[in-house]
């Protein structure tokens, strides 16, 4: 009897545990709004466009606003809209919207509340937004980091690799072991592109540099990010870079007396000694433009990819530990990216195995960048999903 019993309770335990996982995934989509929706004018505003009352704009965030990373940066962009347009607009947001079916419900809800412009700030909202967009042709949809569009849905993204390249210039100058470490999140082209750009930036000042990569296979898992960072330090890396959302990598470097960078938002306060600079995304300029388009009736579908040139990417809070001549080099790169005189992806760009991917004096186009699936020479290891 007791063996039966234990089996049954173990099964039960497993059942509850999987239920818990599901509940945690689904149940976390709790809804919080910054502005109280004015119920009475909602339906009116939906049909009467921007002429009457403020333009209602809504954001769906994948994380909590206060995490000092991806979602925090988007919310700064929302605040930029409010600052620019004042009472001509009314913004609200829903945070921690899970990617998938729950997102569709939330986005539909946002449309139902009379929002005319809706921003979805993560890749996983692409399909749900497409569905809602098809049913609501009078509403404009903006989707971050995706590749599918509709007549009333466009995509926007930022050239995060430009920040990674500038960080690389500093890393290549500061390393003593000539070994850099990157804590990668999910092995997709965007992240691989950042690792390559970081390495190219470092090699531009220090050809001997090697980059080691560990993948944590998550955007956000602080203990795992810590373990990945620790492992890179154990293997001799003395400057760390990350494509993950928390400040864990920076903290690990701080404890070990090594250097690291902030990502997405300014993380300098988390590592007063270790922080070299933060590569930040500034969504403000694009969000202001999108709002302007909607207000003035000039909104058009398409795809937008903004970088340093448009003020969407920057390298900020450069540490005092970085020598003046290195800072000057970064400024030269930044200026070149701004006026278009400097190209990061100018050949020859050679893959890890020595194969030439971009020919001499050719500049890779955005289509090439969008599908990057190789490490440049100097990066060690192999891409997990690779051929």
């Amino acid at each position, binding site marked *: 009897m007791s063996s039966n019993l234990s089996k049954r309770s173990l099964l039960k335990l497993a059942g509850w545990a999987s239920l818990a996982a599901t509940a945690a995934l689904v149940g976390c989509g709790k809804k919080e709004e910054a502005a109280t929706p004015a119920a009475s004018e909602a339906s009116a505003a939906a049909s009467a466009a921007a002429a009457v009352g403020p333009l209602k704009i809504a954001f769906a965030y994948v994380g909590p606003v206060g995490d000092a990373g991806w979602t925090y940066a988007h919310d700064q962009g929302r605040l930029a809209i409010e600052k620019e347009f004042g009472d001509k607009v009314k913004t609200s947001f829903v945070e921690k919207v899970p990617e998938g079916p729950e997102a569709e419900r939330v986005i539909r809800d946002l449309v139902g509340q009379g929002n005319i412009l809706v921003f979805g700030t993560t890749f996983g909202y692409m399909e749900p937004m497409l569905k809602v967009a098809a049913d609501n042709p009078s509403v404009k949809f903006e989707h971050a980091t995706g590749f599918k569009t509709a007549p009333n849905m466009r995509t926007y993204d930022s050239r995060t690799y430009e920040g990674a390249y500038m960080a690389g210039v500093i890393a290549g100058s500061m390393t003593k072991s000539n070994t850099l470490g990157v804590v990668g999140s999910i092995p997709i082209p965007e992240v691989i592109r950042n690792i390559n750009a970081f390495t190219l930036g470092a090699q531009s000042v220090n050809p001997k540099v090697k980059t080691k990569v560990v993948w944590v296979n998550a955007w956000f898992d602080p203990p795992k990010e810590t373990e990945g960072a620790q492992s*890179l330090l154990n*293997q001799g890396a003395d400057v760390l870079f990350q494509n993950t959302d928390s400040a864990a990598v920076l903290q690990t470097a701080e404890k070990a007396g090594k250097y690291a960078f902030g990502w997405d938002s300014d993380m300098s306060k988390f590592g007063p000694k270790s922080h070299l600079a933060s590569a930040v995304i500034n969504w403000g300029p694009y969000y202001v433009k999108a709002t302007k388009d909607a207000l003035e009736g000039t909104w058009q579908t398409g795809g937008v990819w903004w970088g340093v040139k448009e003020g969407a990417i920057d390298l900020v809070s450069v540490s005092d530990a970085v020598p003046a001549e290195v800072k000057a080099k970064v400024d030269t790169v930044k200026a070149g990216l701004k006026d278009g005189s400097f190209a990061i992806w100018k050949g020859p760009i050679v893959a890890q195995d020595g194969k030439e991917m971009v020919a001499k004096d050719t500049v890779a186009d955005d289509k090439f960048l969008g599908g990057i699936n190789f490490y440049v020479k100097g990066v060690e290891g192999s891409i997990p999903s690779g051929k």
Partner: protein
Amino acid sequence: MTGLTPESLALLLAATLNAGTVVALASLGLLINERAGVLNLGAEGMMLVAAIAGFATGVNTGSDWLGFAAGAAAGALMAGAFGALVIWLNTNQYATGLALSLFGAGLSAFVGISYTQQRLPERPHFAIPGLADLPFVGPALFRQHPLVYITIALAIGLGWFLMRSRGGLVLRAVGESPESAHALGYAVRPIRLLAVMTGGALCGVAGAYISLAYTPLWVEGMVAGKGWIALALTTFATWRPGRVLLGAYLFGGVTMLQFQLQGQGVQIPSQFLTMLPYVATIVVLVLISRNPTWIRINMPASLGKPFHPGA
């Protein structure tokens, strides 16, 4: 394979001990719980609440130890509420534990809002004088956070307590056959509550370790599933403290090793490597506990079942 010098092995060992400590502590706490016949699926929630309680205390007082005390208190308090519900009101242990986890996740996020941007004050690093300067093993084994050593001592002490002391016998009796323990005159319910709160306190220390020492910052959801791993480990270790320790370090070790292999460019998909610690821990512990009579002997017979005195 390059890079596996004695020095890097020592570093690997150090990181392993560090990585295993969180899971070991929480799992030892849950073991006490379950030995008393109470299953608490709320570990993740208790750890999250303890992580923010510990971090907030650390930031405001500058003292790690006060932080750990606050974490333990928060864990014990959460467990106390859980205990009152399942022991006296006989609510379903599975459902109540899950509710505790969800509640803890929400509460910690709410309380922690103003702490996401804060930083702990600078604290000195710990080292055992003399031993810490030994070549190779010194930096690895004797420069750890004190809690790493305390955890090992705790596992040994707990093993002795359960099997060799009268208190341990009573605790096991309460978990095996509460009716008999009751008939012998032991206060089953208070003993269970004590066990649950002690377990909660240990989960709390584990949570505080994450936010004070392991990843010294507060971000929402930062326990990232370690509570669930600890729960699983308690079962796979067949409720034995030594095996809990072994499983936790095995888990930490394989986790660190897979990062090491990735950094060295071993041609295995990283997704597979990421899975390795879970699989390796389960395989090893299942092999150890393959003898079905051992599991039967070890699994507290009344685990998860309510107890009605006098019924």
